[in-house]
């Protein structure tokens, strides 16, 4: 783990840490599910999607056959939809039916829990999975709803005034999780790599 200068905040996970965290999560998922049968990884748009794909690749490397992976967009299900300008939704693509399957929702940062609540609503419109689990790369706390993750890459105690800046090669050109102080007056959640 490397430390950056104070003005840029602090790097809490570098590329190697992210890779190791995802490897561990992929093994945890396989262990819980007793293999990769009836398993679907659904990444939450936008940065959850590349994370889900990476987890699927790691699971495939262990199991020897591909695992179903898709993407879920929750724009229409947000509970703050009325208080913001509308955004165009991203792609939702689910590989086949989710009925009776084990669905693992994959997201980058778990914060208030509102994104996951919306994702559970979106999921119930798509079918009825047997089990839904949640995997996140970073859990920064400050939950506003009774939601917890089953698989966590890094528990990161934060102050509300701090923000977690997560970058991935697929979307931002590099792998890095950085903890930054937010200047007074700025909203801590308006940041790259944090969906809540």
């Amino acid at each position: 783990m490397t430390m950056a200068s104070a003005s840029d905040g602090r790097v809490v996970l570098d590329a190697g840490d992210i890779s190791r965290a995802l490897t561990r999560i992929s093994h945890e998922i396989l262990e819980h599910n007793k293999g990769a049968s009836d398993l679907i990884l659904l990444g939450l748009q936008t940065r959850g999607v590349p994370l889900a794909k990476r987890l699927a690749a790691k699971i495939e490397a262990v199991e020897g056959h591909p695992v179903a992976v898709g993407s879920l967009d929750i724009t229409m299900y947000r509970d703050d939809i009325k208080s913001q300008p509308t955004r165009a939704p991203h792609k939702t693509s689910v590989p086949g039916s989710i009925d009776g399957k084990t669905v693992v929702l994959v997201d980058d940062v778990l914060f208030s829990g509102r994104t996951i609540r919306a994702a559970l609503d979106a999921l119930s419109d798509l079918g009825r999975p047997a089990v839904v689990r949640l995997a996140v790369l970073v859990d920064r706390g400050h939950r506003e709803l009774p939601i917890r993750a089953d698989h966590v890459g890094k528990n990161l105690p934060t102050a509300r005034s701090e923000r977690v800046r997560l970058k991935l090669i697929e979307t931002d050109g590099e792998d890095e999780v950085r903890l930054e102080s937010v200047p007074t007056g700025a909203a801590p959640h308006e940041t790259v790599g944090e969906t809540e």
Partner: protein
Amino acid sequence: MKNLLSIDDVSLQEVERIFSTAAEMHDVQAREVKKLPALRGRTVINLFFEDSTRTRSSFEIAGKWLSADVINLSAKGSSTSKGESLRDTALTVTSMGIDGLVIRHPASGAPAQVAAWTGVPVINAGDGTHEHPTQALLDAYALTRKLGSLEGKHVAIVGDLTHSRVFRSNIKLLAKLGARVTVVAPPTLMPSGVGPWSAHDGFATSYDLDAVLPEADAVMMLRVQKERMSGGYFPSAREYAVTYGLTRSRLDLLKPGTPILHPGPMNRGLEISPEAADAADSLILEQVSAGVAVRMAVLYHLLAGEAEA
């Protein structure tokens, strides 16, 4: 975008946003549960002062699939048939606390007037011979899905141009998307003053359908609007069909795979032959399903979020 009264209200960027949203809405139509909660708690009134089947039901389905409460009012059987003015009707329904109005009216400019009176977001679902912006959006969306980018594509719009609001919205939108448009009509149905107008909006005019069809990348046939015709615009239906209809024999003039569009309802045997309407390259039914997706996208961007300043 606060209202959608004309294609002039939407920038190219907003059109692209509507199309990408519509693509997601299209996927929702294939699901078992065709509902999204985006407009939950919002109420939309469809105020139709002219007969309509597809536009009204399309807006109704679009609103309902976004979880809005949708109420249909038509002029027949409502207070307007008792002599109430448009202004009083509009102010009455908006006083009920609704969030959006979809209006079709025989008078050009009526939706714009209602928007000015009420301040409620208004969508023009066809006003007189002025515009029908959601029809143009769904036409262009269906064409984009078929042809990819419309940049440089040649679209022929054929038929009763004088009475067509669909054509007026389409030439603006197709130009915005970079398409080349040629409009074809008999001289009696070519709008007066079309010369300077076509120079301004960048479309070509022609009276010769057979010359235009081989060059077209898409053909959009328009309905002959007999209900708006006060005089004889052509000698007989038979002559119109022979000269300007998309007949079975004219299909051979088209390049293979050229999509055929029609906003409906069709006069089969007049502007379009059954063979053309039911051809493999006909997009007519796809236009209908695209209509729901595009109207969902428009309702969502207009009504779901916080109003733009």
